[in-house]
């Protein structure tokens, strides 16, 4: 068997059904072998989106996403997507072709040191020198990507290694890594301490991050909250751990989050931070979550414990395993009725204030209407910019809704390719991609991927003909001296949609919103819904 055949065979052994990629000369042996496999290739239009699509696939399937590119420019285009996945701990296996082994280092056509370039934002990387190592490396790569704190793993394979004979193909049953042994279960003594602290708390709060989704621990988290009447706030990455209609859920924390979520964080006497890292945009002053209260920090990554805030009870391990352990403990359910009432009243007396002018589509209004009209088990993929903050704060999350976005890296152009990946993971779900006009321009080449690979997505473009988030920043910090934020020059989205054979709808204001949204969501065919937003609207 050849190395390239072993690569494909290994992917099959890992249960891979789709690869997202873009070919080139030095990855051609692999693409050739794919023809003899049931694995479907999703041909993206630029490599960055292969990584984003693989990320969307991984997040909705719960498995590992696979993206593939050629050497040099192909691999380098992948980098932003790999860094995006790394920042959000998304399990990916990224395969890049490389020039002939004996030409490495001689600056031949399309040669770039990709393992070197992405060293600081992959979980691990391999440069394959012998085809015989392919089965072992593939096994390890999938294991490393999907265990502990998840993340992208890169495998760079020279073209001659892909064409090398390996003899008989044997796939290892398990990865044996002397130096990598992630902790799964939480320390029993610490679990007891958590149970005791929870029983004593008067104002407990669960602070949930993306790690809860990654561990598949949503139902365990809901049990903990519901059985003990503990209110929940989430980070951006944690959104959809709780349905928004739950009386226990108080929204997203952070400088762009809900005031009632931040109030809950400030006033809680116990915070249980799960799969979150107290990042700068979520908690501007980490001492707020640590001083004068009991901080419990549950995370897969030891290095996150105490990085931003020093916990009283650290717990390293898999969020699902640890939540199961905690749920099995006897916890004297704290009486949180007053605490919940306090938070609920604060939310009701404050509420969101409309900032845009009449005569435009109100972003909060349209997002609320749209998401509340969606089916229960749908997927919302959200881009970066004002559209992201509006979506985070105003989406109606139902019990089975999954909300995904690029949080840590904040990579514009994520939502459409991620939605295409999500579609491959969930053939029958309703999938809506929400982006601003700036983000849409960064990924609209993928409309043809969507049409070619039968991956219909409903796309909402919140169009204010501005880079709204930067404009807003310049409004606040540069006294409205606006620089390079106006997006003129088209295109007319109705003609663009027509060019791809995609249905187009437009909302100028809120008058016909209900009917338009209904039409937009009905049926399975892809639609672009353009919503005209006040350019001066703020998040």
């Amino acid at each position, binding site marked *: 068997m050849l190395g390239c055949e072993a690569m494909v065979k290994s992917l099959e052994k890992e249960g891979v059904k789709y690869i997202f990629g873009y070919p080139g000369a030095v990855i051609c042996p692999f693409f050739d072998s794919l023809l003899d496999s049931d694995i479907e290739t999703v041909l993206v239009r630029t490599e960055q989106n292969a990584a984003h699509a693989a990320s969307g696939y991984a997040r909705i399937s719960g498995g590992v996403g696979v993206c593939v590119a050629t050497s040099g420019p192909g691999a380098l285009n992948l980098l932003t997507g790999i860094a995006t996945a790394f920042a959000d701990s998304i399990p990916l296996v990224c395969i890049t072709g490389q020039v002939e082994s004996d030409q490495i280092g001689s600056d031949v056509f399309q040669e770039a040191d990709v*393992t*070197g370039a992405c*060293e*600081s934002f992959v*979980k*691990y*990387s391999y*440069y394959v*020198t012998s085809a015989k190592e392919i089965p072992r490396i593939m096994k390890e790569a999938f294991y*490393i990507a999907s265990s502990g*704190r998840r993340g992208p793993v890169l495998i760079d394979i020279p073209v001659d290694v892909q064409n090398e004979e390996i003899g008989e193909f044997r796939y290892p049953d398990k990865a044996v*890594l*002397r*130096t*990598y042994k992630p902790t799964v279960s939480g320390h029993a003594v610490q679990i007891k301490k958590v149970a005791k602290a929870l029983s004593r708390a008067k104002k407990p709060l669960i602070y949930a991050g993306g790690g809860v989704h990654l561990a598949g621990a949503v139902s365990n988290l809901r049990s903990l909250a519901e059985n003990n009447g503990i209110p929940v706030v989430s980070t951006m990455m944690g959104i959809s751990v709780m349905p928004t209609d739950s009386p226990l859920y108080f929204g997203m924390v952070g400088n762009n989050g809900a005031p009632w979520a931040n109030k809950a964080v400030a006033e809680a006497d116990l915070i249980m931070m799960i799969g979150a890292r107290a990042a700068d945009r979520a908690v501007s002053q980490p001492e707020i979550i640590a001083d004068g209260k009991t901080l419990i920090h549950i995370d897969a*990554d*030891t*290095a996150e*414990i*105490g*990085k931003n805030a020093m916990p009283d009870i650290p717990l390293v391990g898999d969020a699902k395993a640890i939540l199961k352990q905690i749920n099995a403990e006897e916890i004297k359910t704290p009486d949180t009725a007053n605490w919940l009432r306090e938070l609920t009243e604060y939310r009701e007396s404050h509420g969101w204030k409309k900032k845009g002018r009449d005569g435009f589509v109100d972003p909060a209004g349209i997002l609320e209407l749209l998401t509340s009209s969606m089916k229960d088990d749908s997927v919302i993929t959200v881009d970066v910019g004002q559209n992201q903050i509006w979506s985070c704060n105003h989406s109606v999350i139902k019990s089975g809704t999954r909300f995904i976005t690029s949080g840590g890296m904040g990579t514009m152009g994520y939502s459409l390719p991620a939605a295409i990946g999500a579609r491959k993971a969930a053939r029958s779900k309703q999938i809506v991609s929400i982006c601003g006009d700036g983000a849409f321009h960064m990924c609209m080449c993928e409309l043809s991927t969507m049409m070619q690979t039968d991956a219909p997505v409903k796309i909402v473009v919140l169009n204010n003909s501005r880079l709204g988030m930067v404009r807003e920043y310049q409004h606040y910090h540069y006294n409205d001296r606006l620089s390079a934020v106006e997006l003129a020059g088209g295109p007319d989205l109705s003609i663009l949609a027509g060019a791809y054979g995609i249905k187009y709808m437009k909302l100028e204001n809120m008058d016909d919103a209900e009917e338009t949204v209904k039409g937009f969501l009905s049926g399975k065919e892809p639609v672009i819904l353009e919503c005209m937003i006040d350019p001066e609207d703020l998040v």
Partner: protein
Amino acid sequence: MNNKVLQLLVDNNSGVLSRISGLFARRGYNIESISAGVTAIPKFTRITIVTTGDDEIIEQIKNQVAKLVDVRDIKVLEPHESVYRELVLVKVRVAPDQRQGVISIADVFRANIIDVGPESLTVELTGKQDKIEAFIALLDGYEILELARTGLTGLGRGISNVTYLD
């Protein structure tokens, strides 16, 4: 901020040194010196890094380094529980009539003369860092042509803190 000596045991994979030094660079940790070499079992490499930072930073460094897939073990070699050594090679310009002066300094430090040329002497010295500093300071009156230091390496005392290899 004091110097701290970190001892790492890593899998001897290609690129491992660049992964570790890259992590220090990216996260803004300082490297005063770094030395590396294979252990008794060639698949493992031992790396000694001298860095600076308060306790919190050192804890972060330990956690971030331990997280790297190739890293088997990392610990701080505390001065009272460890032995440290460094090796230095110094090439000094000496006229024939100056040779004896350098040789007698070397003798006091139990250093070795490892090369003699018509106009130079090369001296090898192994010791703790303060000894090496003192030796270099004493050569002040001579012209040091070249100087090479290995950086610190060290081991913990006794057997209580040994990481056994498999």
